[in-house]
């Protein structure tokens, strides 16, 4: 799925409002089909960065390329990019179907094709049968689904999500993390989302960037956060010696589609969780609990955490 590592490419992007440097020389590559998080406290420029990608702000300098095309000054309405707004921005004067179909007018579709696209979108977000609801008759979670469908129905190359879960209550938020992740895997579209919640970023994203945070200085103690499925289990160290750690296999679970392994590493209190799809051939090499194994990962799959 990850065909191009620079599917979305920001080069030295800066944006200032008056004397405030909201975004200062950011360069970033995001791969096709990646679920990417921009993490940081409010005011760190992550929303500005998202709005630059959406075409709502023009950068003062730098360039924005998506799928090879220079979109730096392309207006929002001509970009192959759609956005889910923080408050969802559901059109209050339109019903659910009209909201979802809003952006299809310029796609040159017949009425029947349009209806079909809307039906598909309704099915994707599991709101079949609610198409005729008025936008004021929707719950917070339903509003979010409509906002997602309204953007995805356009088959964008990139979907932008501004704090997608912040308007939901806690229990729904946790459920939507899982659903959003599953939805992204299903549609295979590159998702870029903004959040201030580290846990949210770690639980959903393949990769995380924190704008405004520099590289760690030499000798600084940092924690590396890696999603379980981004880790690879092996019996020898990585060839270049970097991005690997030795540990002891403490538990293995075979859960149908997925295998879960737990590996204890010196200096780390909790066992590290490793997940692999059952379809990928894992050479077990006769590992059993207590075997010495190597954990390796791609640098792109890891995230530095401080503190």
């Amino acid at each position, binding site marked *: 799925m990850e065909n191009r590592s620079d599917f979305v490419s920001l080069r030295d992007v800066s944006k200032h409002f008056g004397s405030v440097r909201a975004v200062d020389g950011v360069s970033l590559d995001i791969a096709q089909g990646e679920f990417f998080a921009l993490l940081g406290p409010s005011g760190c420029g992550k929303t500005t960065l998202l709005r630059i990608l959406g075409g709502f702000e023009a950068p003062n300098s730098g360039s924005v390329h998506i799928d090879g095309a220079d979109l730096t000054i392309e207006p929002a309405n001509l970009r192959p990019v759609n956005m889910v707004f923080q408050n969802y921005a559901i059109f209050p004067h339109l019903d659910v179907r009209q909201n979802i179909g809003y*952006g299809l*007018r310029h796609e040159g579709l017949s009425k029947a094709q349009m209806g079909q696209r809307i039906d598909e979108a309704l099915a994707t977000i599991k709101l079949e049968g609610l198409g005729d609801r008025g936008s004021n008759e929707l719950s917070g979670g339903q509003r979010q689904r409509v906002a997602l469908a309204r953007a995805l129905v356009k088959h964008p190359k990139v979907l932008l999500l501004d704090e997608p879960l912040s308007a939901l209550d806690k229990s729904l938020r946790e459920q939507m993390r899982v659903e959003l992740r599953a939805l992204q895997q299903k549609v295979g579209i590159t998702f870029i989302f903004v959040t201030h919640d580290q846990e949210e970023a770690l639980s959903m994203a393949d990769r995380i960037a924190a704008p405004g945070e520099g590289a760690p200085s030499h000798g600084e103690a940092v924690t590396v956060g890696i999603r379980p499925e981004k880790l690879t289990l092996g019996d020898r160290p990585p060839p270049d010696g970097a991005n690997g750690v030795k540990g002891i296999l403490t538990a293995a679970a075979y859960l149908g589609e997925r295998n879960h392994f737990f590996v204890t590493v010196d200096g780390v209190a909790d066992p590290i969780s490793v997940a692999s799809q059952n379809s990928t051939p894992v050479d077990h090499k006769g590992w059993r609990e207590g075997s010495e194994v190597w954990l390796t990962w791609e640098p792109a799959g890891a995230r530095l955490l401080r503190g």
Partner: protein
Amino acid sequence: MKTGAKSRIGLRGLTLYGILYLVFLYVPVLFLPLFSFNDSLHIAFPLKTFTVKWYEQMFANQELLRAFFNSVKVAASVSVVSTVLGILAARAFTRYRFPGRRPALGLLVLPLVVPGIILGIALLIMSKWAGFQLSLITIAAAHVLIATPFATFVMISRLEGFDPNLEEASRDLGESGWTTFWRVTFPLALPGIVASLLLTFIESFDEFILAFFLSGDEATLPLYIWSQLRFPRNLPVVLALGACILLASIIIVAFAEWMRRQGVSPARNTKK
């Protein structure tokens, strides 16, 4: 409780004040319809018998009807022009931050606070200087001047009431600025637009001083009424006319206010 008793007396006093205030406000106005049905040329108690002949005379009066239609023509053009200008200005004030925004908002109030007679004289001098022929058009132009700030404030309060993200969402979904206006801004601002049309219509329809200075051969309704006051026997017809205008004004203003408040809360997009 001492304080309770005290505040009860205070409350009673305030209620009395409120009633007196309303009597002072509305009783003089209510004399209009009352005497318009009185079968006498003189406005005096006791009332004589009930009649509708003043209303019959009113509808038979060609000069009066002509003035009425002049006023409708002027007021209709004024309401459309000033509301369009008001929408444009309100969009600029609510959606953009630009240098001079605050002073411009302040200057906008000026035509509302400059005394009508001063404005009338100034506009008359300017029309003469510029060589404009005084006519219904000069009256309408003057009315646009005072109605536009009014329309702008009505539209600002409406546009501030809805989420600018809705317009961005429309842009995001492929609509240009112009089509976004028609598909999102216009339908959501419609109650405000209707309110602005009605209120500016009334403002122009009722206006006397500017029309007095800037009229040519054709009179508007307030000018006609003024001209008739010299003839005591025409007074009851004027009362009948006044009663009609009063009723229409109340209905239009009440409807405009109702429209202005329509759907502000759902449009805010915060409802669960």
